[in-house]
């Protein structure tokens, strides 16, 4: 920035405390614990299937979902300049991932999953949906599952380790749907699971079965409950379409981790003794009851006499 530019710029402060708090809430964090806020939107054209699918997926994200209902003709994230309005929406909604539904002749019922880094498109993958069944079709099978609970996510199949597209899909899907980073979990609260199974297709790209199940605990006669799965939807199959990984330099920046050092308490360095620790010792009680050696000077008679003497000498001085 040159001097002329500097003179034109000024520092602006948040005017209200509420504004300040809002800005702080949006500020980048050293350790990101919150789940990824996800934008759900449709492109130029959408289909009924996509509308239902997106609303189902949004309900799986509950509070971390930002749903948009109108058509967005300008959103074409795989084309040059087609990401501008998407990035704008991301900034507005403070979103870090998106799910876009587009329906074209060339790519029918296409869902694009993508992520943002600093409100800039990071990586994305297209999946072409077939055989969709919505949550509603399963008639309240997922009633037991609590909205916003953390799902178990399960990937079955060798292709999730070998196919580039599916590898990316695995990472994006788990990132979007895993929710908050927590350090403890209620064992009773593990109530749903997303299971993705790859199906090899000879001569073609593998397809994937996406299913969501409600987990029911049953008695097994041991300490460990026996689980039963009940399909709760949404359920669909897909093949991977176009996908784009993040550029390596951006990736490096995005995968940075803050160095978290725990503050060491009650430890100090001493010149003579080296490392010195301070321990907490509980207050010792019952010492007075111990049989101690009684000295003459500690006797009450002598003590009171001594005090009186002191008092007298003091008053004498004053007079």
């Amino acid at each position, binding site marked *: 920035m040159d001097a002329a530019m500097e003179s034109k710029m000024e520092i602006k402060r948040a005017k209200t405390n509420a504004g300040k708090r809002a800005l702080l809430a949006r500020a980048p964090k050293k350790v990101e614990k919150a789940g990824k806020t996800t934008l759900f939107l449709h492109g130029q054209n959408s289909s009924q299937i996509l509308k239902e699918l997106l609303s189902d997926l949004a309900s799986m994200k509950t509070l971390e979902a930002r749903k948009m209902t109108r058509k967005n003709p300008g959103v074409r994230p795989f084309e040059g300049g087609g990401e501008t309005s998407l990035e704008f929406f991301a900034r507005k909604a403070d979103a870090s991932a998106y799910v876009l539904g587009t329906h074209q002749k060339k790519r029918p019922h296409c869902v694009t999953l993508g992520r943002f880094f600093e409100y800039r498109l990071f990586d994305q993958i297209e999946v072409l949906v077939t055989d969709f069944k919505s949550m509603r079709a399963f008639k309240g099978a997922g009633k037991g599952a609590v909205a916003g609970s953390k799902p*178990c996510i399960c990937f079955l199949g060798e292709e999730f380790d070998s196919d580039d597209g599916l590898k990316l899909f695995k990472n994006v899907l788990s990132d979007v749907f895993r929710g908050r980073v927590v350090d403890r979990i209620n064992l009773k609260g593990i109530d749903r699971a997303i299971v993705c199974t790859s199906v090899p297709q000879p001569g073609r790209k593998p397809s994937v079965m996406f299913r969501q199940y409600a*987990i029911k605990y049953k008695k097994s006669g041991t300490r460990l409950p026996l*689980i039963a799965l009940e399909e709760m939807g949404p359920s669909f199959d897909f093949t991977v379409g176009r996908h784009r990984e993040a550029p390596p330099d951006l990736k490096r920046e995005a995968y940075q981790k803050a160095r978290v050092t725990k503050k060491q308490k009650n430890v100090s360095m001493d010149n003579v003794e080296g490392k010195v620790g301070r321990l907490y010792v509980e207050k010792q009680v019952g010492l007075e009851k111990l049989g101690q050696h009684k000295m003459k000077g500690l006797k009450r008679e002598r003590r009171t006499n001594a005090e009186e003497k002191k008092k007298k000498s003091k008053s004498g001085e004053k007079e």
Partner: protein
Amino acid sequence: MSTATDARASVPSALEVTRAHAGALELDLGSLLAEDVVFDVRAVAAATGTTLDGAARERGRDVLQRVIAELFALPSESDGNGRFAQLPEPTTGFPRARALPPSETPLTKWEAFAKEKGIKKRKRSKETFDEQSEEWKRRYGYKRVNDANDVIIAPAKMTDVVGKTEDPFTREEREKRERTQKNREKQDKNLMRAVQEKGVKALPPTLRLAVTGQKDSVGSGKLGKREMVHVASRVAQSTASMGKFNAPVAGDEKIKLKKGARRQFDDNLDTEKTRKKSQEIVEKLLLKEKAGGMVDVNMAARKIQQEKEKANRKNKSSGKSTEKKIGGKTGGKTGGKTGGKVGSKSKK
């Protein structure tokens, strides 16, 4: 990713009872993720004679049973809401949503100077002894030592002049305001320096860098109300239709479009009309001559009143009261000459 840990003695049998998946799995318990890469749905479905869906579901159940078993084996604590397992740190890497914020704040000018000169921060006690009240008080803040707000009567100096020396209380207020302002400016300078060195990221999240004077053209209070209306009307007229077909905007009805004078021309062929017009003019002139010293009383009275008020205003502003003079002046104007003039004007 961790594999099955050596759990309690009872768990292995429980694993068998619950038909948990015993094969190799990639687990990330911190994020509740599991991956089974040695599974071929087609092969399993063909072998067991089930559908693809059924085979996948069966395997999914077994894998999830294993995940649950691992979770139950983790150290846990229970409270009123149930048993909570303590999850390990997630092992799968995911990109951040926002860039890592800078770990160290850039040095201020003073800090840089102090570092260069080796000046170290001295620790000062929070409280100091106030000799006036003979007690310990805060150095800064509420109930502080030498708080200017506590002074009820400010001592005067010999050099003070009544009416010329600034009131000590307002002076204190002004100085405080100036100090704050100066400090704010210094803070801004330090921040701008930090931005120059390390980019916008160096700013704390509650601050923004904005272009100055953005608001100055309109709405900063620099334009008067009249000018605003003028600008607004100009803008309203600056369309292809000269403002005729503007879409209605709330508040726009207050803007009056200034219309240019319209010239009107009489018909060249209509002789009757021109004849009438010239006759009118002649009649007017004749009337004037007839009227001679006649006065339109109402008009004259109004004129007199106006003159009176005008003179009154003038006197008020100059601070002199000259009632008599006004009377004389206005009296003169009621005379025949002026009266005649007024009368003639009214008929125009």
